[in-house]
């Protein structure tokens, strides 16, 4: 552009003018296609990241895959110290990952959706923004802070007060007695699950609130106009209308719980044995990687990478399903 302006100012001859105009246009053209390809390559780089993650994990996991094969999935023993042939199995971490996520979600899902209902239906207008913002800030706190707080504050409290009561309460009861079997322990699956629940709670609330906001006010007002109570509006209008998105949001929370590392690593105990009791130490896939990876080598390290690959595949499917569901809600809102 500057070139054209300069040409105009110096009042060049018509021939010169055409030449410089052609030059300027050529420069534009070059800049245009350069920028186009830069953006396109950047977009492709996003796919490249995914491809890179899968490729590197598969390469890294290959030695372990060859050594253990499918047995890796249902072997409980984790003995990297055995030389020259360590026995490594993923059953313990898989069990811990699924169990802690399940407990965390059964606590966080109803509470999180409850907070979202409070924010969209019950909360006075003046409180809506500050409370919503507080929840969002809670969602932004790094997970290591939750882990640390769980380690220093929550775990001692639960272990001294909550766990003994539960153990006494369910002593002798079949099934539940085994689930809540003693002794109480700082490092336990139960404590880790609770920290996880507190961590995913604001996350679920934020998504559920956004999903609830897509309900057309007219629908709710019609229901209120017919004399429905708040609960009836939520149950019969808001939740049916947003069901797909709500499930998508919960699965997004689940994806987060499955892969969370720092919130659980401190208090889960890093034990690969499955005891059946919630108050016993355990481990999750991510906690196992976090606590052992830096000091591992050879097949042990490869097995940890294989664990990571399993985790990635698991969360990939959960997140993909979640996104597809949320997309349906977005599309409906878009018209």
């Amino acid at each position, binding site marked *: 552009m500057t070139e054209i302006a300069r040409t105009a100012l110096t009042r060049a001859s018509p021939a010169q003018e055409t030449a410089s105009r052609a030059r300027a246009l050529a420069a534009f053209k070059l800049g245009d296609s350069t920028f186009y390809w830069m953006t396109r390559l950047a977009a492709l780089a996003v796919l490249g990241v*995914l491809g890179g993650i899968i490729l590197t994990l598969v390469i890294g996991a290959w030695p372990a895959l060859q050594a253990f094969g499918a047995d890796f999935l249902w072997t409980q023993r984790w003995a990297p110290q055995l030389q020259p042939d360590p026995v490594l199995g993923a059953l313990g971490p898989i069990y811990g990952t699924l169990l802690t996520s399940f407990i965390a979600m059964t606590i966080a899902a109803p509470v999180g959706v409850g907070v979202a209902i409070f924010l969209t239906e019950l909360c006075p207008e003046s409180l809506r923004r500050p409370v919503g913002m507080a929840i969002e800030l809670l969602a932004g706190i790094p*997970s290591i802070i939750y882990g640390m707080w769980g380690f220093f504050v929550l775990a001692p409290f639960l272990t001294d007060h909550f766990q003994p009561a539960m153990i006494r309460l369910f002593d002798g009861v079949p099934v539940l007695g085994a689930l809540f079997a003693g002794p109480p322990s700082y490092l336990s699956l139960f404590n880790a699950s609770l920290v996880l629940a507190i961590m995913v709670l604001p996350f679920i609330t934020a998504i559920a609130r956004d999903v609830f906001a897509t309900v057309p006010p007219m629908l709710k007002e019609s229901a209120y106009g017919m004399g429905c109570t708040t609960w009836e509006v939520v149950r019969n209008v808001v939740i049916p209308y947003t069901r797909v998105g709500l499930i998508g949001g919960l699965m997004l929370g689940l994806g987060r719980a499955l892969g969370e590392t720092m919130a659980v690593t401190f208090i889960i105990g890093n034990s690969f044995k499955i005891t059946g009791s919630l108050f016993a130490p355990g481990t999750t896939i991510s906690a196992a990687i976090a606590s052992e990876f830096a000091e591992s080598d050879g097949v042990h390290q490869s097995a940890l990478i294989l664990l990571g690959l399993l985790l990635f595949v698991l969360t990939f499917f959960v997140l*993909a399903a979640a996104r597809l569901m949320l997309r349906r809600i977005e599309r409906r809102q878009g018209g």
Partner: protein
Amino acid sequence: MNPLYAARRRRDVLVRALCVAAAALGLLWLGLILWSLFANGLAGLGLDVFTKTTPPPGATDGGLANAIVGSLAMTILGVSIGAPLGMLAGAYLAEYGRYEKLSDVVRFINDILLSAPSIIVGLFIYIAVVQTTGGFSGYAGALALAVIVIPVVVRTTEDMLLLVPNQLREAASALGLPRSLVIRRIAFRAARAGVITGVLLATARVAGETAPLLFTALSNQFWSLDMGAAMANLPVTINNFVQSPYETWRQLAWTGALLITLAVLALNIVARVLGAERKLK
């Protein structure tokens, strides 16, 4: 009163009470966490924290200077690699390829990467960078953070560019501005506040990330500005100090946690204020 009405009302009151209780519980956690952070972290907050390096085992004084500097360096480098890439990709999704099949795929994958477990990113960079270059390094840590920044920035950039009215682009095109300049000078300028918000949120997100740094940047007990070697950083230092038997280390862990939380909260609040200003206009 009609018994049916009474029953409906009872149920309504019960559910409302439960929802209020849930909200109170949610805020209670925030309060409790912030309270313990301040109560434990403030005690150790002094000038030493910013001027002395992390203490050796058993020492009674020390600070977090090397960890703070390392964290700053890696976060800044990570964001300055990830944010431009994310902006360019976001520009492609919103401008050139808005209705393309490829963009649909990129969008979907990006959304998955957005919530992929961060420890996986650590493994990825460990195998791709640490193993091939032969050692832990600050660069590897920054790259891991960049991988986390990209999807956040892609998403916000695209969303913000989509909000720019098409008439602006059409008007610029009608004046003969080439497409790339329409995007850079018109669309991006109109969406500037939103894009900056996205970058700030991405910075807040990576500022406290621990898992991807555990075995990429590792940690370093000494003062070092060399990003080609293992580098100290706040999250991993906290991780190492929390479970230690030394009172000094535990205290520093709390102080570091307080610093990180304050930084993240401040970034979040600034981002939100910027975002809100944009909406008012």
